[in-house]
């Protein structure tokens, strides 16, 4: 099930994924949404540069997000794979993509993705979730909003939960 968070903070189920995964041998088309491995993106950068439709790229936990720096403003989708929900590297990758590389497109968690991670994923900057536990959009939304406040950060990354720091500032000001 693919669940996406809208800019308004709603979670909606998407039956189909418009991005077509390409394997290492398939030629890169000029149009149509496609999903590439990071190796392919680097190797065939020229062909990707000629494309007229959004391109997606998939990273494994060991891949360095810095390699996406030249592409950050041009990608439509970045997929970060969780081989196991216990592998926490994609959270750091997501934070770096959003904060350091300024990536503003769709950021998707794939692989072993469980609703118990929903809140942490949202707060790390993910807004798209290929779940592996059969969660409905409603269940996912419930899990993402279970805790009202978060201690980390000053600016909210996701609509929920709210950063405690900012709310304490408000309390101070009133």
């Amino acid at each position: 099930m693919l669940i996406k968070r809208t800019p308004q903070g709603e979670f909606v189920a998407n039956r189909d994924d418009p991005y077509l995964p390409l394997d290492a041998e398939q030629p890169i088309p000029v149009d149509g949404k496609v999903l590439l491995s990071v190796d392919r993106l680097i190797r065939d950068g020229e062909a990707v540069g000629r494309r007229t439709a959004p391109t997606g790229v998939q990273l494994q936990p060991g891949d360095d997000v810095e390699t996406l720096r030249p592409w950050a403003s041009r990608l439509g989708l970045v997929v970060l794979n969780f081989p196991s929900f216990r592998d926490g590297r994609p959270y750091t990758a997501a934070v770096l993509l959003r904060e350091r590389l300024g990536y503003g497109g769709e950021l998707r968690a794939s692989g072993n993705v469980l609703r118990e991670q929903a809140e942490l994923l949202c707060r790390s900057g993910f807004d798209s979730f290929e779940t592996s536990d059969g969660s409905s959009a409603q269940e996912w939304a419930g899990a993402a909003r279970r805790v009202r406040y978060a201690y980390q950060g000053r600016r909210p990354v996701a609509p929920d939960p709210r950063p405690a720091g900012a709310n304490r500032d408000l309390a101070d000001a009133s």
Partner: protein
Amino acid sequence: MAFGMYRYDAIDKAIVQDRAAEFREQVQRRLAGEISEDEFKPLRLMNGLYLQLHGYMLRVAIPYGTLSGDQLRTLAEIGRRFDKGYGHFTTRTNIQFNWIRLRDAPDILDMLASADLHAIQTSGNCIRNTTADPFAGAAADEVDDPRVWSEAIRQWSTLHPEFSFLPRKFKIAVTATGADRTASRFHDIGLRLHRRENGDLAFEVMVGGGLGRTPYVGQTIRRDLPPRHLMSYLTAILRTYNRLGRRDNLYKARIKILVASLGADEFARLVEEEWREIDKEQVDLPAGEVKRIRESFGMRAFAALPADSQRLEQAKAGARGLAAFVRTNVLPHRQPGYAVVNVSLKAPGEAPGDCSSEQMDRLAGLADRFSFSEIRVTHEQNLVLPHVRLDDVPDVYAELEAIGLATANINLASDIIACPGLDYCALANARAIPLAQEIGRRLADPDLAADVGEFKINISGCINACGHHHVGHVGILGVDKKGEEFYQLTLGGSPGLDDAAIGDVLGPALPFEQAPAAVEAIVRAYRRERLPHERFLQTYRRVGLTPFKAAVYGNAH
């Protein structure tokens, strides 16, 4: 004046309440059979619920080892209602309940939340409870109260979106005096708050210390970190570890292995590089927030008292027991007329760290009456009443004696640190508690103990080293040899900041029956070899293993 205790605001309360509600729903799903034990395991571990030999064990966080009287009474009530009437204080200054039923766990978490306590991040590969100086607020040479910074770390690390699935568990210690009582060099990160020559506060940052299978002494990677950048610097360390730490081998996943394999200099360079890039506005606490946390602790106003107490001196004159207690368990306080009173959980024959609900209740009462309602937990598995008037020490002693907690053995040979071992733990190779009890009995004689002086024995039931055996003057490690319990002895370990050391292996492991006699032989050899006023560690470092080897193995080899 000293700092009191941090008071939860509405936001702190909401976070622990929401977390408890979330776990209640997960337990319901498990009890209804909607999720399997495999799926449930990571969820219960995130809430401190382990499956041990006898059933579920709940580990409750005692943030930086500080408890109020009311909080201790809540723990007593949990022990009474949901366990067998006691709890076990651990070397991580947490408390464990060993006989918990799954269906009760949500109610227990609610009770904890109502007392501003929780079990969040007491297990799993995340940032665990922070260790702080148990004498905070009472230590004479303290440059600031380490609990202010420990509370800031507690909040920053709680349900951290980026650092909840690290390669392995992660432990931070904060100390603010020269005399380190936190074993900071044996934590993943040790923070020593000190004053620079210009008078500014700064953190010395140590990384990569740890015990377990491969012990390492932490390395200093920054001497003078301005406190306002603590969170961004911790973030840089954790981020570097999260990215580069090994995940292919459980036994090589701690940060100490990463630091050792890169070298401390290279690790420091990577951290500095990361730190320069971090958006500090987003991560660091604004001065106002540090001030809010600091003020939330409140201040304890001490009475102006003479430095000596006639009442105590007179009471001591007629009572040998009180005099011995004052000599070993009562330590100087920075405020004249006050003392730090240590409460030993190592009475002869008792399991180290165990405390009954009745004892907890009465200790809470003592804290209310005599110590501003404050109790501390030490990593040596003892308790502390941090601010007691010298005048009140006789009353405190009498009450402690009435509840079996007046054992005068702090830092003496029978003040043994031991993990739960094979009696409770699913990982253990050997028993630790019965061995501690037997050694404690043999070394309990007050005259012998006083003559031997400071002597630290640490017992771990397996290589995971929860009993911190590497840093014991005498370390004892339980090993399994073809299904039999054996014990390997090490000598010369120390958790101190300046003399941190990992013990040296004495010789072949011994069976259970021979281990207590071996420790006695080591004590005898020390008394024979020592120069006047020499402590065990000094003697050991001067004479080395040989005389101790001869004392233990002489006849057999």
